[in-house]
């Protein structure tokens, strides 16, 4: 993107385009860079070290696309928070989760388990393709 920026600036300097046109081009370039950064998160191939972000990517055939990048440290903090929920509230949460088909006892979640869970997310990839062509992908990188 640096080369393109320099080229735009040199076009302005040479008088081939006006300063206003140059500014518009720079805005467009910046916006394109931002979108590309989100739309195409780093691939998992060849990644080393602990993953830092969880990516949720939804591609709809109707043209609605959603990309969400969540820091894994936020996931970690959220999981840690569950172990601090007061026991009475935890009972209610566990009951509600069990009623909805998720029989997980969150009070059993220990700090070591959380670290292990975060570490194992590195290997995780969820890829859902619907019949109508919509695609949902969740992974960490």
């Amino acid at each position, binding site marked *: 993107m640096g080369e393109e920026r320099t080229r735009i600036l040199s076009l302005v300097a040479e008088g081939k385009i006006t300063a206003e046109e140059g500014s518009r081009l720079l805005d467009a370039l910046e916006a394109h860079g*931002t979108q590309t950064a989100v739309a195409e998160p780093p691939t998992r191939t060849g990644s080393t070290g602990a993953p830092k972000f969880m990516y949720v990517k939804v591609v709809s055939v109707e043209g609605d*696309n*959603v990309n969400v990048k969540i*820091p894994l440290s*936020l996931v970690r*903090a*959220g999981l840690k928070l569950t172990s*601090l929920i*007061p026991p009475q509230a935890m009972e209610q949460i566990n009951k509600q989760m069990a009623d909805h088909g998720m029989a997980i006892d969150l009070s059993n979640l220990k700090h070591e388990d959380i670290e292990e869970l975060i570490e194992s997310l590195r290997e995780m990839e969820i890829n859902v393709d619907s019949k109508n062509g919509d695609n949902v992908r969740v992974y960490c990188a």
Partner: protein
Amino acid sequence: MNAPPAVVDVHVAEAGGRRLHLWLPVFVLWPLLLLAGGLGIAAAALADAVLFSMGRPHRFTSFVLGCFEAVGETRGTQVFVENESRTVDVTVR
């Protein structure tokens, strides 16, 4: 523990070429957050002490601190939504 988010960047681009860039300085709310945090921690610590003396120990203080930690960790969150007519990009920095 990370500092709370300082800025929220919102980019909206419409198909017609209209663009909107909002730079929300969340850091101006930090003093308010500090005050709310201080009061929250004090109240939680008091509740913990009272409940402990009644033989029903709780960890409300840790819970409040955990909430603040979670708020701090939202830095780096990015949400990008695109459809035929509009593109919205929200970044927490």
